C-alpha cells in the first residue's frame, strides 16, 4: 500500500528551476533511496515533503491526506545529528512526543521502551557530547522514529561516519527495520549504500533535478553479507553509474 506520494512537484529559486516534475512514492515498510549528485535538488525535495517549504507546483500526500506545506506530519532527520546539547538523550529523544502535547513523564517512559531496540541502553541520562558519533546517530534516528507515524525521511544520515562505523550502522538499521514498522525515504550519494539498503532506488540527475530512472533491487532481505561482492550487485552499480 502506498503511504507517501508526491505529485508533479516543482520548485524554483530566483527563476532557476531546482526540481521539476517529481513523482515518487513510498510503500508501507519499504526503504527507498534517492540517489544523485550534489546539487540535484534532493534536499530541496525533502524540505518540501517535510512541509518546511512550499513547492511552486504539485502536492505531497500522506496516506490520503494532503500535507503540502504542513510541517509535523512526517519525521525528518537532517544530515547532522542535531541533538540538543543541553538535553539528556532521553529528553532529546522524547522531545517530539512532548511537542505533540504528551506530559514529560509519559513521553520519557514511552521513549525509554525503544532504547534497547536501538542499541542505546544505558545512555538515557547522558548528554549528547558523552556519546560517540555512531551512538549519536542512533539517538537521532530514535528521535526521528518518535516523531514519526511510520514514515521517516533521512538525509544522508550516515555520511558523516567513518567507513567501518557506517557499514555497522547499515546492518543495524536493516535489523531495526525488521522489528519496527517503518517506511523510509533515504537520500544518499553513495551508490553502494543505496544498493545495500534499498528496495527501490530513484536516480535524480541534472539541473533542474528530475527522476531519470527507477531501479528495483530484487535481492531479498535480510541480505547476504557478501551481497556487495556478487555479480548482481555490480550489475546494479553499472546501471546506476550509466545514469548519473
Amino acid at each position, binding site marked *: 500500500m502506498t503511504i507517501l506520494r508526491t505529485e508533479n512537484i516543482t520548485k524554483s529559486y530566483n527563476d532557476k528551476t531546482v526540481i521539476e516534475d517529481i513523482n515518487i512514492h513510498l510503500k508501507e515498510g519499504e526503504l527507498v533511496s534517492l540517489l544523485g549528485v550534489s546539487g540535484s535538488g534532493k534536499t530541496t525535495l525533502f524540505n518540501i515533503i517535510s*512541509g518546511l517549504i512550499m513547492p511552486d507546483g504539485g502536492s505531497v500526500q500522506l496516506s490520503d491526506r494532503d500535507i503540502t506545506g504542513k510541517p509535523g506530519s512526517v519525521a525528518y532527520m537532517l544530515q547532522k545529528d542535531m541533538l540538543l546539547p*543541553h538535553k539528556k538523550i532521553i529528553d532529546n529523544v522524547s522531545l517530539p512526543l512532548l511537542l505533540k502535547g504528551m506530559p514529560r513523564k509519559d513521553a520519557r517512559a514511552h521513549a525509554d521502551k525503544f532504547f534497547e531496540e536501538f542499541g542505546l541502553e544505558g545512555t538515557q541520562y547522558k*548528554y549528547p557530547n558523552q556519546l560517540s558519533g555512531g551512538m549519536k546517530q542512533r539517538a537521532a534516528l530514535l528521535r526521528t522514529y518518535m516523531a514519526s507515524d511510520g514514515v521517516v525521511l533521512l538525509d544522508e544520515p550516515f555520511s558523516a561516519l567513518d567507513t567501518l562505523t557506517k557499514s555497522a550502522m547499515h546492518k543495524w538499521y536493516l535489523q531495526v527495520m525488521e522489528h519496527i514498522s517503518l517506511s523510509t525515504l533515504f537520500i544518499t550519494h553513495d551508490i553502494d549504500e543505496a544498493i545495500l539498503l534499498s528496495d527501490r532506488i530513484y536516480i535524480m540527475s541534472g539541473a533542474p533535478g528530475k527522476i531519470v530512472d527507477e531501479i528495483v533491487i530484487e535481492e531479498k532481505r535480510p541480505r547476504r553479507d557478501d551481497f556487495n561482492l556478487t555479480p548482481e550487485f555490480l550489475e546494479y552499480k553499472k546501471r546506476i553509474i550509466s545514469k548519473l
Partner: protein
Amino acid sequence: MSKAQSYAKYIPAAVALVGIILIWQLVCMTGIVPSYMLPSPVEVVKALASDIETIMFHAKFTLQETFYGLLIGIALSFIGATLMDRFGVIDRAFYPLMIITQTIPTIAIAPILVLWFGFDMAPKIILVVITTYFPIAVGLLDGYKSVDKDEIDLMRSMGAGRIAIFRHVKFPAALPHFFSGLKIASSYAVVGAVVSEWLGGFNGLGVYMTRMRKAYAFDNMFAVIILIIVISLLLLLLVNIISKAAMPWKKAERGNYE
C-alpha cells in the same frame, strides 16, 4: 586532572600576588614613600579592622544598589533582547540606541541622575542598570543568533511553534552567552554603584571614600578598595556557581564513549 594538579595551576598567581604585597610592605617600611601617601598593607588591614562597623554599614547600601541594579538590568535586557530577536524592526530601531547608551560617560551622567532622582538609592540603581544592561543584552542577542538554522528547521519539522522553539532551542543556546555577559556586568555593577555614590549621596562605600579622602585617611580608602575587590570577586564566584548549576551539560565529560 587530579585535585592536586588543579590547585597547582593557581600557584604562580598566588606567588605573584604575595610577592607584590611583600614588596609594597618593604617599600613602606624602608620609608622610600611616606606612609601618609601610601599606607602599607599592614596599615590598610588595621584601618579595615578598626573601622569595620562603619565600613560594613556603608557596604550594605552599595551591595543593595548593586544587587537591585543587576536584577533590573537582567530583567530589562532579557525582555529587550528577546523582543529584538523576535521582531527585526525593534532590533534595527533600538540597537544603535543601545550602543549610544554605552558611550555616555558614567561620571558625567551620575550627577544628573542625582538631580533628577534625589540622593537616595534610585539614581545609583539606575546607573547600575545602565552599565549592566548592555553586556547582558548583547550576550543574549549573540546567543539567540548562534542557533543553527537547521536546528530550527528540525524543530519545525516536528511541528514546534515559536514558543516551543524558544524554550527548547534558543533560550538554552543563549545561556552560555548570557552568563559571559553577566560576568562582565557584575563587575561593572559594583564599580557603577560606587562611582554614583562618589557623586552624590548619604550612604554607601563611595560616600565613605569621599569622606576619607577629605580627611586624608588614605589607609581607610585603601581598605575600602580592597573590600570592593573582594565583593566583586565574590560576585563573580556567585555567577560562576549559578552558571554551572544552570548548565549541567557543560561539565558532562567528553569522550566517555559507550
